[in-house]
């Protein structure tokens, strides 16, 4: 990482830390953005850095959301354990879905993940503990580590921020690690990577599970922020949304998904008042992005500076 990027990260973290001291951006909105940013980053690890397009990531997001909601509400676990169980659940699901899906490539991979996540959706509709289409509502945020009351939005915010930063740092590290280097090689030329002695499936599976676990982490956080888990979280629209966030921000860039999440969540929020026009406007934004800013926001900016130097 060069000093310039370090500077950018520093500034961003400062802004994030100062967020509660302003009135312009609503804090819960900021939390939502952070949750989805983490989700999109986790997804990007798979798409941007492993070359696997999963069209079923909502399954992980939603499963973990439900698990956390269930254990925090019905069992009364404290939030840290609720989250831990959620992440474990989504990682386990990731292992299961991943080991089936990585046997296939490209568009087929996308479709297998879609199919399997539709089954998860089906389960979410049918299983009794998920509360059907009402979902699990009124999940208590609880006391973090027994003494930090998360009911307060400010402490909740800092908790979400901390978790996000940890998740983000993990992804950043993974991408640049020796492991990440091999992932990149696999994405570029799989047979060659095999002939160099790399057990390609193991790599794909590990990155799939990491991605699933982090997506789950995002889902659990979201559950605590909004205090609910619903079918929206496991619906294929959610899987689609995370693809959009990633592409909009710039896939294969580190900050892209964060920016993309901000844009999509922001659009949903601020276009909400104009009814059907919001759908139309969203549509136009995608069309324009694809036709004119294909690298995504962050990708375009990076490209601009690169071509200038």
């Amino acid at each position, binding site marked *: 990482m060069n000093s310039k990027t370090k500077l950018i990260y520093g500034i961003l973290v400062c802004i994030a830390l100062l967020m509660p001291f302003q009135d312009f951006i609503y804090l819960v909105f900021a939390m939502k953005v952070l949750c989805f940013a983490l989700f999109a980053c986790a997804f990007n690890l798979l798409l941007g850095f492993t070359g696997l397009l999963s069209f079923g990531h909502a399954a992980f997001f939603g499963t973990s959301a439900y698990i956390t909601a269930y254990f925090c509400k019905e069992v009364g676990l404290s939030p840290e354990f609720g989250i831990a169980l959620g992440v474990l659940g989504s990682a386990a699901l990731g292992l299961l879905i991943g080991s089936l899906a990585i046997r296939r490539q490209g568009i087929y991979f996308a479709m297998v993940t879609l199919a399997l996540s539709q089954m998860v959706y089906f389960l979410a509709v049918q299983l009794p503990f998920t509360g059907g289409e009402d979902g699990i*509502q009124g999940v208590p945020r609880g006391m973090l580590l027994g003494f930090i009351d998360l009911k307060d939005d400010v402490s909740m915010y800092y908790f979400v921020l901390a978790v996000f930063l940890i998740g983000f740092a993990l992804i950043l590290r993974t991408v640049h690690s020796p492991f990440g280097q091999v992932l990149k090689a696999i994405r570029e030329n799989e047979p060659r990577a095999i002939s160099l002695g790399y057990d390609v499936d193991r790599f794909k599976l590990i990155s799939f599970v990491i991605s699933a676990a982090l997506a789950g982490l995002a889902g659990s956080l979201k559950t605590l922020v909004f205090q609910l888990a619903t079918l*929206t979280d496991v619906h294929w629209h959610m899987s689609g949304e995370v693809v959009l966030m990633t592409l909009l921000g710039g896939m294969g860039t580190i900050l892209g998904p964060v920016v993309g999440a901000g844009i999509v969540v922001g659009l949903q929020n601020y276009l909400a008042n104009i009814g059907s026009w919001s759908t139309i406007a969203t549509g136009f934004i995608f069309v324009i992005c694809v036709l004119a800013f294909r690298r995504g926001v962050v990708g375009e900016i990076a490209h601009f500076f690169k071509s200038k130097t």
Partner: protein
Amino acid sequence: QASKTSGDVIKIGVLTDLSSTYSDLAGPGAVIAAKMAIADFSKDGTVLGKKIELLSADHQNKADIAANKAREWYDKDGVDVIVELVSTNVALAVMEVAEQKNKITLVSGAASLPITNEKCTANNVHWTYDTYALSNGTGKAVVKQGKKNWYFITADYAFGAALEKDATNVVTANGGKVLGTSKHPFPNSDFSSYLLKAQASGADVVALANAGQDTINSVKQASEFGINKKQTVVPLLMFISDVHSLGLNAAQGMYLTEGFYWDKDDKTRAFSKRFILQHKRMPTSVQAGVYSSVLAYLTAVQKAGTDDTQAVMKALKSTNIDDGLFKGKIRADGKFEHDMYLLEVKKPSDSKSPWDYYNVRAVIPAAEATQPLSLSRCKLVTNK
């Protein structure tokens, strides 16, 4: 971050489905209804000398979006009351937030009984209708006509199940029998398989425990398969907007229950004529409910002399409501108890003018259309 007091304005938020499945029965029309209520309440748009402000937003039928918006409204914008809230999961999510923030919700569009039952809150009123009223109204009337054998086509989610359960209770209590049920995924477009099963079951009544598009398509296809000729198709939840888009040809002869019909009397007609000028469509019962709830809220604020939540709720629950559209009382569990109407869809030949769709067959008195308090599982009632 301390929630701000509402300051010098009274803010009313219409949180509704502006763009998806339920936008015709609630949606922009609900916003218009709320505006009309404010205008009717005071010429200069004030209460207690404070300005009344209206906000609206689209919740897209997603609980998380709704909860997010509700929080933001209550925390940041100082909204005092949120109205409409079609779709049960949305209503429950927002009620939860409102309870935490000690603010008010007035639910009009959502249908599930649990809203004033096991999920009830002290700051909520369920205004227009619920699954109990629907199934009691239509169910009882149809069984009493001697159509005792029922077959259900039910949307496979909590609302559908609740509706089916309530209706089943009514049917069996009145000596009828349920022959079978087909659960269909939500949403669904082709119902022919279920309809054929219903047909094969030989039931007198094919009851539709679903809503919106699903109901419309079920009715339409039932008439295509000629099912409505031999069996009675009963949509348990249907609005005038649905009948309008179905057309009388397919819808004729069906019984349904609503809390409001524009052509019921002079007062409803007067309101509706004004409404259609602005919205190009007649009001649905949900939209009428929004009008009524906003008007009642403002009246209660006036009466309480403050916008303090507890005071306003107290005023609301202690006033008899009669605004020309709805007439009744709000009970302790938050249910607005009022009469419902059993309606029959007219034959095309009987329809004299646009939107002339129903004959009012019976008035279901409030007591019958509402679950008795003795059966309630609402914490506000059981604790007493």
